[in-house]
């Protein structure tokens, strides 16, 4: 032991310790600023998906197709949505549109709500109740799906809504639980392919033979995986009937 200054909290701080304490304080404050900046600055780009509130409410008419989750092939567009577009549909929050769309398969309907957009991916978040989706007059038929063959793809399973911009970022492992909740709630799941497929990066996914996705896929959501399935084009939307047994988690 030496004659080192001895610190007692309630007594005056020894002069020799003052310098050390000043230094430590400066280090802590400086460290807080540096770390705050470094970590804050190291955030990945969350993508350009967004709710397009700036477009205002969009109301369109078209044919509903259940894949089994509902999409609308637009026949009469709006300012921002062209005729011929295929829209994925969702309710508010993590609620799908299936309960309202189930009775409208293959029929004309009017959909109204706010658009979510990210690149080529479009989703309409419907207003509540019949204001959001109701049967409409007019003629229209579901465009015949075009079979594009069996594909093995690498990429990530996401929920279509957060990915399209309901959350930024709306993918990745941090967001995994949220994506599971969305998919459980009936939001259409989407596959983000690492390589463009038929010119597109995003595909809507279903279970084999257009069945609902089985629960087994929840273990693979938000991971980098490869899987196989039958690919088809529905309107301008690619739909991939993913076979859960073929899922492999990639490093």
């Amino acid at each position: 032991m030496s004659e080192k200054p001895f610190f007692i909290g309630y007594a005056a701080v020894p002069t020799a310790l003052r310098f050390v304490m000043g230094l430590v304080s400066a280090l802590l404050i400086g460290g807080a600023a540096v770390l705050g900046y470094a970590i804050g600055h190291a955030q990945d780009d969350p993508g350009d998906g967004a709710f397009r509130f700036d477009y205002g409410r969009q109301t369109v008419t078209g044919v509903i197709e259940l894949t089994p989750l509902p999409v609308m092939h637009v026949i009469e567009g709006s300012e921002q949505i062209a005729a011929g577009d295929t829209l994925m549909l969702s309710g508010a929050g993590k609620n799908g549109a299936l309960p309202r769309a189930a009775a409208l398969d293959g029929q004309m309907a009017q959909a109204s709500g706010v658009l979510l957009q990210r690149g080529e991916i479009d989703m309409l978040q419907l207003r509540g109740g019949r204001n959001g989706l109701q049967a409409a007059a007019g003629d229209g038929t579901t465009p015949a799906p075009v079979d594009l063959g069996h594909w093995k793809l690498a990429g990530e399973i996401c929920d279509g809504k957060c990915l399209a911009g309901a959350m930024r970022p709306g993918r990745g492992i941090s967001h995994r639980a949220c994506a599971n909740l969305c998919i459980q709630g009936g939001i259409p799941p989407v596959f983000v392919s690492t390589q463009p497929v038929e010119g597109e990066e995003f595909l809507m996914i279903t279970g084999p033979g257009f069945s609902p996705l089985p629960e087994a896929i929840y273990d693979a959501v938000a991971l980098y995986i490869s899987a196989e399935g039958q690919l088809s084009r529905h309107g301008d939307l690619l739909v991939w009937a993913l076979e859960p047994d073929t899922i492999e988690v990639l490093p």
Partner: protein
Amino acid sequence: MSVKYTPVQWNRVKYCYDALLVAGTILFLAVFLPLPPEALGHTRPVDPQITNARAFGACAFVMLSIILMIGPLARLDDRVLPLLYNRRHFGVLTCLVALTHAYFVLNWYFAFSPTDKWAASLSANTSYGQALGFPFETLGIFALLCLLVLAATSHDFWLKFLGAPLWKGLHMLIYPAYAAVVGHIALGALQSQEVTTFAWITAFLSLGVAGLHLAAALQARMSPDPQAHAVPDPAWREVCDVTDLREGFAQIAQLPDGKRVAVFLHEGQISAISNACAHQNGPLGEGRIVNCLVTCPWHGFQYDVRNGQSPAPFTEKIPTYRVRLKGSRVQVDPVANPPGTPVPPVPLSKAARV
């Protein structure tokens, strides 16, 4: 001799300490939160809720790392002891910051769903069998619960109520909590980030915490073990040679029951007391005698070295030990006296003093 005694209550150092804590925390958040998307090269901003969750989460992790570095640093260099002084406030603030992180996550990722958000936080991801995609939220919840328990029992009331050994044991929960936090980050945020800065910072801080603990443990091992020369009479344990003693300071030795004794030299007389402070088990033998009283290096509790009692009006008591001199060797009776038992100090004979 005048006895001026103030317990661990609010004082200037504490105010400064807390001001520093709050300033550091606010600065971290104030630098992190307002970074505009252009500065980060993003087309659109990250959701404010997610930015908040990230900022508060990262802040809590950094704070927890610093808290855990203080202990071993203070053992390695006693100039760091002032940081230990008010560490409990540091812990409580960290708990609040972590709670804010959880609040933003819960009300964003787990909200808007038909499933209740509290239930969803446990049920949305149940892939416990895999490392990638592991429900890292559960690790965070565990750590947060630990922090809440520690913050809730941080007051001296609980220390008294539970007793120092139990209280200390409970507060060891901080280690599993920290391990869970590191896992929470490693399996969560770090898995979905392409920019690796945060990964490096996480590795640096967590390895720093582990490394400092290792270094402090190694140092404690390397310090000479007085039991190396055990006395033939097994009833008494040898502590040191009288030449090792210095006026106002102690020599510490471990007794067969695992407890430590601190042997002080005060006004030319030898006395032995328990090394564990009645407050939070602080190492009394690493303190020194100030104004005739042994003063704990952690929060400054004081004891009369001859009877293990705090000066009136305080009532803390610690066990004392009987001491004797065998030639120039200092020995203690390893059976502790009940706390507060007076023991006559043993004068150093002129011959024995060097």
